[in-house]
């Protein structure tokens, strides 16, 4: 290795390392702060100062004790909503995406343009009419109310369409010759081949569900029904303020998604990229 090459290696690695440190900084500071009284952070902001002798696990105890373990209820709600949302989302969007990719039918291109349109319109624009709709269906403060407006995710359709387009059509032909029905072909032959796409989409949808705030905040009214993001956010309001639980709760709320990511990094990054390349 010549000198120039070593210099470039050091410089490039250093630049990337700086950005990586910035990326991880919030986790580090909030983790450290979660061992100190929340009021300290509220008053003084986050500071580059570590007085380890004052650290304690008091905030983590509140997860069990605060309001009869309300935090654990939020956790359970988040998990249940995530499972329902990911399950229904995967099922419907793969069905539609596959249909769009593998069949030629009247209205196919129009439908795909509509999918793109839904993808492009921010849901936030529709929060008022959707609220009225969910209210009319008497689904306010229910899991179903949170899930229903996102039950056929357009991004999922787009993703599965892109993926299925690349799969050999011969599989369908041979399935037909073997006497498989069209749905048999999908469920028995294509679904297994599409597993990587399901993997990537699972993480993507799970992430969206786990972290979503605005819509659940509108639908879920009582504290017992709330999910982690809105529950935690409610701890910041003048009424429910409990900054100690806020800190430990925020740290605990990132853990599952972080673990899932660290275990499936390759699938995740590859899957995420696959949806974007052929836009």
């Amino acid at each position, binding site marked *: 290795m010549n000198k120039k*090459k070593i210099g*470039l*290696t050091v410089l*490039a690695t250093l630049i990337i390392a700086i*950005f990586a440190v*910035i*990326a991880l*900084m*919030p986790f580090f*500071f909030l983790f450290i702060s979660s061992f100190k009284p929340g009021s300290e952070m*509220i008053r003084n*902001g*986050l*500071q*580059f100062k570590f007085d380890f002798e004052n650290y304690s696990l008091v905030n983590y105890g509140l997860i069990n004790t605060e309001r009869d373990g309300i935090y654990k209820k939020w956790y359970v709600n988040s998990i249940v909503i995530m499972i329902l949302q990911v399950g229904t989302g995967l099922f*419907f969007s793969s*069905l*539609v995406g596959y*249909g*769009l990719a593998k069949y030629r039918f009247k209205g196919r*291109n129009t*439908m795909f*343009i*509509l999918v*793109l*349109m839904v993808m*492009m*319109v921010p849901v*936030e*624009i*529709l929060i*008022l*009419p*959707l609220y*009225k*709709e969910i209210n009319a269906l008497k689904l306010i403060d229910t899991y179903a109310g949170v899930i229903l407006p996102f*039950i056929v995710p357009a991004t999922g359709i787009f993703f599965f369409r892109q993926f299925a387009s690349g799969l050999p059509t011969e599989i369908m032909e041979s399935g037909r010759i073997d006497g498989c*029905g*069209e749905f048999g072909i*999908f469920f028995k032959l294509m679904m297994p081949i599409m597993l990587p796409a399901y993997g990537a989409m699972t993480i993507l949808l799970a992430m969206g569900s*786990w*972290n979503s*705030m*605005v819509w659940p905040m509108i639908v879920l009214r009582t504290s017992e029904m709330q999910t982690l993001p809105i529950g*935690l*956010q409610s701890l910041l309001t003048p009424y429910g303020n409990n900054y100690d639980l806020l800190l430990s709760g*925020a740290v605990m*709320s*990132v853990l599952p*998604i*972080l673990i899932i*990511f*660290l275990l499936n990094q390759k699938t995740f990054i590859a899957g*995420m*990229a*696959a949806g*974007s*390349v*052929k*836009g």
Partner: protein
Amino acid sequence: MSKQTDIQKKGTKKAGKIRMIKLAPYIFTAPFVIYFLLFFIYPITDTIKTSMSQQVGFAPPKFSGFANYKLLIDDYFIMATQNSAIYTFFTCLILIPLPLLLAVLLDSKFVVRSELFKSALFIPALTSVVMAGLFFKYAFSSNPNALMNAFVGVFGIPPQGWLEKRTTTWIVLVLFCVWKWLGVNIVYYLSALQMVSKDLYEAAMIDGATAWERFIHITVPGVKPTIIYVLTISIYGGFSMFAEAFTLFNSARTPGDIGATIVSYIYAQGFNRNNFGIASAAGIVLLAGVLIINIIQLRITDPVGKNND
């Protein structure tokens, strides 16, 4: 005789199969059609209707034409639109070139342990906006010893009340967004870079092109579809931004509306003030803007494709 019915049977079975093949795509895509009508067309028509009617007390809404749209043009809405536009502009300005440069670096073999860095850079995208908001709110605290004030102090800049002024609030929100999405865009660009032919680089090297020339003339055109994709999602994300501002200020309303965005305007008018008519009018304006951008984007990229079969 039995042979004949057999053939007949086979014939009808085959016909049934062909019919099924014709019918299947409609069944496969039916969930989307139902969803589209119930949770897209219906809410949008309802928004249009509400935006053109006025409700006073408990009386049934009355048609009011464009009255709500005229009411829309007040300082609050203009503040919100400006904030969203400026925020979107600056996030695009940073989040399109910067991740591309970093992706090229990560791809260049000069970066040691690049896999580890890729993961680290991606992690912000996994965090909930509540947790990230907590960090940004208190790292940018007005306390002179708080992280950001300590940092700018190194350059001789006096401590700021970051979330008390409009311009500094923009800075916080843009940094928030860059922090969250940088890694995701890097991932997009990295996968696009794999598609750029290595031969081109080698040919350019032989011709004596500099690294910068190779970047501008080979890399940038090579990843153009991804640049357009990133631009589109950035515009989309920029104009629909709300949760970030909400977590920083704990409310859809902010003092002096410094943190107001178009969506927080819709939320505040609708849910805090029960001005459904004005909120809906704002929604339609935003929708129109987004659709125009989409049509332009669809024109440029042509995702349906003429050779897509």
